[in-house]
């Protein structure tokens, strides 16, 4: 728990245009411990997805560096699993094939039957075993996202990077998937390190050990808040507690500060 799993040092990303340079994120510093569950929240355009892409290794910072287990990342890696905001399934593969294809990149020597077995196990975890032969176009947005989550989980990475994974999932399945995420995060032997980008404040409080609040233009870390509710957290009683309400209010204020300032101090009706 003590060693830092992910470290960001002065990470900045500037998009160079012909005339103007657009600074997407600026001087981000934080480190995440092994097994820690961290949420990143912030208004849209604060660069939280961009930041996650950098940690995924799909893009590289123009300044600063990102270390994983003390080593600078040079691209994507098998130790990191990603769930994108958009449904990132391959539309020409059935749900099961999508998982098997992902698993095949990891386990080159395993038989097709073994991989299908793993795929089926994870598909039933997200409640979609009966849909394993369906193509993504035959599934709803929420179902597609559950398949994508199953794929990321099935590959059993030590780090999970998730970009608003439950945004398109309906309320009931969201709760189920959140519970599932917690279960998989802490599945006995070794906790995974999770970074969850979300705009759902309740989700962030319920799931995380720590919340990183970002502000926009340029994207910077505004505040880090430790969430020390004991686990396992009981949803219904937690929401009623005063501590929860105070925390929530604090986050809401942080979240919307930016917005209010931007509009010029006028009251904003949301």
């Amino acid at each position: 728990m003590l060693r830092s799993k992910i470290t960001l040092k002065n990470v900045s990303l500037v998009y160079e245009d012909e005339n103007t340079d657009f600074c997407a994120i600026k001087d981000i510093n934080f480190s995440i411990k092994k097994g820690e569950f961290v949420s990143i929240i912030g208004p849209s355009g604060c660069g939280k997805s961009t930041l996650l892409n950098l940690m995924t290794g799909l893009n590289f910072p123009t300044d600063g560096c990102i270390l994983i287990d003390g080593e600078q990342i040079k691209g994507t890696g098998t130790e990191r699993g990603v769930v994108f905001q958009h449904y990132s399934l391959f539309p020409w593969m059935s749900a099961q094939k999508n998982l098997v294809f992902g698993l095949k990149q990891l386990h080159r020597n395993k038989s097709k039957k073994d991989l299908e077995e793993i795929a089926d196990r994870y598909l039933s975890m997200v409640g979609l075993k009966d849909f394993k032969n369906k193509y993504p176009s035959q599934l709803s947005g929420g179902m597609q996202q559950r398949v994508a989550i199953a794929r990321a989980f099935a590959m059993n990475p030590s780090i999970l990077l998730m970009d608003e994974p439950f945004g398109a999932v309906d309320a009931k399945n969201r709760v189920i998937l959140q519970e599932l995420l917690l279960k998989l995060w802490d599945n006995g032997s070794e906790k995974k390190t999770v970074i969850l980008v979300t705009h759902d404040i309740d989700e962030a409080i319920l799931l995380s050990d720590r919340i990183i609040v970002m502000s926009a233009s340029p994207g910077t870390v505004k505040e880090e808040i430790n969430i020390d509710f004991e686990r396992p957290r009981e949803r219904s009683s937690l929401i009623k507690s005063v501590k929860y309400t105070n925390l929530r209010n604090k986050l809401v204020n942080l979240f919307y500060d930016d917005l209010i300032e931007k509009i010029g101090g006028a009251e904003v009706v949301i």
Partner: protein
Amino acid sequence: MKKLLSATGVLFLLALLLELIPEKREGIIPLYYITVVAFLGLLYILIAVFSKNKEKVETVGDVTAIILGLLIVWELATAKFDLLDKLLFPAPSVVFELFVSEWKELLKGLVSSLELLFGGYVLALLVAIPLALFIGWRKRLYRAVKPLTKVLGPIPTIVYIPYTIALLPTFKASSIFVIFIGAFWPIFINTLNGVFNVEKKIVDSAKAINVNERAMLFNVILPAAMPSIISGATIGLVLSFILLTAAEMIGATSGLGWYVKYFSDFADYPRVIVGIIFIGIVVTGITFLFDKIEGYLLRWRR
């Protein structure tokens, strides 16, 4: 029963009742006309009885009605009332009779044509798709090749025919080469664009699961670009038909295009019509097959 009283049924009876009118032209065996009409009617009834898809039955009925209508006009204008020039417009029975007596020739022509068509077309598929896949995936190479395709692609392939005939030893080789060039460009350009325009999120999610270069090209980029590839392959196929017939009419000694050209040189228009109808049937068959393959390859898009 009500179904059979529709326009199709009425036209069917009309087409048969026509035969009560005596022929004005001589030497016609009406049996061939009657057989074709009866065959069309039977086909429709079979589909109407066995198909559960109402819309399909309706469409088949309408198509049959249109064909029957055309047949009736043709029969009346030629065999029955002799309104048109006998040499230029043979009666249906004359044409259908030739189908029976000429089938060996037609089949021979078909084999010879298909050799050229598939030779050139399959070669184009085999060269254009991997090449475009390889180039489209490398951004710098793509930017270099793209302007070249804009210059070379639109040159009408027919202009290559005389040069190709001079260049290559046999007619067969030069026809295959011309068909190859004609089919190559649309397949190549479409595949290239398809590969270049694969959605970033698809590429990103492939990278995120750490696919290697080979899996990226063949398991991700290729299927993602498949809709573009198919549309290029369709244009390529149509161009291949045109070039095949053009090439055969210019220099062949066999094949369907040759068949039509050869008999029109002798003013044997019944055989010319037989050739044209047969080409129509062959093209329809190939297109049908192509659509089936397309439907299978893009089954995930429904």
